[in-house]
């Protein structure tokens, strides 16, 4: 007897015998009905009597419908059997596909825009391409594709080319390109958020020696994030009685939208950035400061003592931690000399040792201070006072439910990504890999697959995303190991410890840049020391993780091994 597992409770698997019998029965029923109607039609034909519509429907139409219904059921059973097995294996591929899909659409869009730019450039009287669009007409596009302009015959081009021209025509306008990229960013944020939800629960499971989500969507419950989102969407949106309606409804979006717009200035690579603004960093800091207001209004408008406590604590914590975070951000800006993220990223393309975190001991310390302050700025790990379950039952989003709560949740993960992205951008060599970009010079210019290889090996969006996810892992890892800090200790840490430290670092960096010649002995020595320290930290992290994984059976202990399922 096949072993009955919990899986069968959720998705009763048809045993092969049961499925075969069902198919036989329905096939038989379908055939009988069909033969019956055939015989009836022939008899009517023979007797030649005209039939009233009622008899016609009852005699002929209904049975045939039944017959085809039975045959359709047969088809459904077989399809379900095949599809079910297929989907389960493909499941994770679909998920990775969605991630890849987002990156591919971005890449496709950039190819498309590149093509249109070439067409515009190829025009006989090229006028400057502006946001309002040059006067590129469709027939010019056709002529570009059909043949050399002198060949008159080329004018009657095949209709397909006409259609392509119509398709390509709108993309010469900058606004449309921004719309597409904005959608890509929104897609990327939602995929990141749902991935981060699943990853956090998986990492939490691993740390707490349990499995984490295993069931939703097949392999290791990869669709848990999406399932949570769907569940929350169809939950009822409760608004407390005496709550301040409009403010209550507006608050979650005041938290999510600023973080989403922060992606405007976050460069994934030198060409992959929505707007490489002169003041990118300041804008991102400003936008991160706005979701304090959303959180406070949420706590305040939900008319509940506990959430008001949460709101008060959050206000105190986030406002005070913006200062050390902002000032720690200043150090790399001083070193790079510009606020443009693109420029800062380009500066660090010389390989592992040129990353800004290793340029001077002050920058190295500033990286640490920035990371801790960013933890507090997005209410994570030891600083997650606002939703301190044990004291305040839920903090500022106690009264929220359904989709609004999901918006808070997505806002938190998006903020985590932005904050980690900034750390990577400023300290850990933005979109560059540890290998110096100069080695891959030859690849950069080559054909498309060489440029792809260059993007994968030396500098490309994949590196930015990978490093940001690594920092995201540290956020998650800290949350599930460290206990929570009390509110007065949070304040003490910020004002008495972090603030003076960042000020000293600023002073130190200033003197470092003034007094130490950039390519002198001390600068190079400091660079080497910091690089070795950074490498040591990464090696220690990877080493312990590897050692832990290799003898995970011995570490856990004999009883746990044969007691826990699938460990």
């Amino acid at each position, binding site marked *: 007897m096949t072993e009955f597992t919990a899986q069968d409770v959720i998705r009763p698997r048809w045993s092969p015998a049961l499925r075969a019998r069902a198919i036989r029965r329905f096939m038989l029923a379908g055939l009988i009905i069909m033969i019956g109607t055939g015989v009836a039609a022939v008899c009517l034909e023979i007797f030649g009597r005209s039939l009233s519509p009622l008899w016609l429907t009852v005699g002929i139409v209904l049975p045939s419908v039944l017959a085809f219904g039975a045959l359709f059921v047969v088809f459904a059973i077989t399809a379900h059997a095949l599809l079910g097995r297929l989907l389960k294996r493909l499941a994770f591929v679909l998920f990775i596909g969605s991630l890849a899909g987002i990156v591919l659409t971005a890449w496709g869009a950039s190819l498309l825009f590149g093509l249109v730019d070439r067409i515009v450039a190829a025009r006989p009287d090229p006028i*400057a*391409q*502006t*946001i*309002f*669009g040059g006067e590129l007409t469709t027939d010019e596009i056709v002529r570009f594709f059909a043949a050399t302009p002198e060949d008159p015959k080329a004018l009657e081009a095949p209709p397909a080319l*006409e*259609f392509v021209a*119509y398709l390509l*025509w*709108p993309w*010469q*306008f*900058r*606004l*449309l390109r*921004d719309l597409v990229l904005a959608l890509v960013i929104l897609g990327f944020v939602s995929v990141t958020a749902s991935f981060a939800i699943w990853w956090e629960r998986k990492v939490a499971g691993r740390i707490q020696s349990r499995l984490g989500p295993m069931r939703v969507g097949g392999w290791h419950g990869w669709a848990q994030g999406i399932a949570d989102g769907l569940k929350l969407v169809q939950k009822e949106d409760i608004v407390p009685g*005496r*709550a*301040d309606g*409009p*403010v209550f409804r*507006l608050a979650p979006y005041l938290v999510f939208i600023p973080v989403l717009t922060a992606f405007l200035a976050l460069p994934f690579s030198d060409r992959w950035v929505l*707007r*490489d*603004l*002169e*003041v990118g960093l*300041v*804008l991102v*800091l*400003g*936008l991160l*400061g*706005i979701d*304090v*207001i959303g959180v*406070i*209004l949420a706590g*305040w*408008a939900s*008319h509940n003592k506990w959430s*008001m406590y949460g*709101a*008060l604590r959050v*206000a105190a914590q986030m*406002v005070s931690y*913006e200062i050390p975070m*902002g000032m720690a951000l200043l150090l790399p800006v001083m070193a790079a000399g*510009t*606020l443009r993220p693109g420029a800062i990223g380009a500066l660090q393309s010389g390989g592992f040792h040129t990353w800004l975190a290793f340029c001077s001991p002050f920058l190295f310390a500033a990286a640490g201070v920035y990371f801790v302050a960013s933890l507090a700025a997005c209410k994570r790990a030891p600083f997650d006072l606002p939703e301190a379950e044990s004291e305040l039952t839920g903090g500022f989003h106690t009264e929220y439910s359904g989709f609004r709560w999901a918006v808070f949740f997505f806002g938190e993960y998006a903020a985590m990504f932005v904050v980690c992205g900034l750390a990577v951008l400023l300290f850990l060599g933005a979109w560059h890999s540890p290998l110096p970009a100069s080695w891959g010079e030859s690849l950069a210019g080559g054909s498309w697959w060489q440029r792809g290889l260059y993007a994968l090996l030396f500098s490309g969006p994949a590196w930015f995303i990978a490093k940001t996810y690594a920092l995201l892992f540290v956020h998650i890892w800290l949350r599930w190991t460290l206990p929570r800090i009390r509110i007065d200790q949070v304040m003490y840490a910020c004002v008495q410890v972090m603030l003076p430290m960042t000020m000293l670092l600023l002073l130190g960096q200033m003197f470092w840049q003034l007094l130490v010649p950039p390519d002198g002995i001390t600068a190079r020595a400091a660079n080497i020391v910091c690089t070795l320290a950074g490498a040591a930290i990464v090696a220690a992290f990877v080493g312990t993780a590897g050692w832990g994984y290799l003898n995970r059976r011995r570490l856990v202990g004999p009883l746990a091994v044969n007691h826990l399922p699938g460990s």
Partner: protein
Amino acid sequence: MTGSNRLSIVAAVLVWLARAGPVWARGPRGPGPADWIGIELEAVMFYLLGGLAAVCAVGCVLSSRVVRMALFLFGALGAVAGLYLLLHANFLAAIQLIVYAGGTLVVIIFGIMLSSASAAARYRARPAEKAAGAAVGLLLLAGLVTAVGRIDWSEGIAAAPSAPTVDGLGRALLTTYLVPFELSSVLLLAVMIGAAWLAGSGRK
């Protein structure tokens, strides 16, 4: 309605939309001459943001629920930040977001939360205060009208200056405008010490 007609209609709509695209921020390829369609769009954005700022400001003054006032104030400050962007003053817009929307407003909301007993606290101004407010409002309006009247609109629009670079600002702050810069920092220092003393004395 054959396929291609419908397609051309879609393309036409897209074109109209594209022509009406905003000068959100110039692409790296440098500013192009704003032909008449551009100005029409920029005007649309200007009216949109200006209107939003005006409505929020009025809302902030007229509304009696304290928390609503704070929200309207946030709307007004955000709209002003948008206006700065339209004027290509990107740095100023970012600073506006940080200092006003992120800083001052939070302190104001803090003040509201700590002083009013419940979320539905209302603020009903006394007639004397209303009169004073109206007087100051009218005074400012008069100043604005005279200023607008004195400008000679006939010259037309000067070409939008290229976005003032940040280091230009920095250099100006520390060279030509050094004295006001230092004075304001001393003022801020005094304010901070005062605040610390006030809070400290309370908790003795």
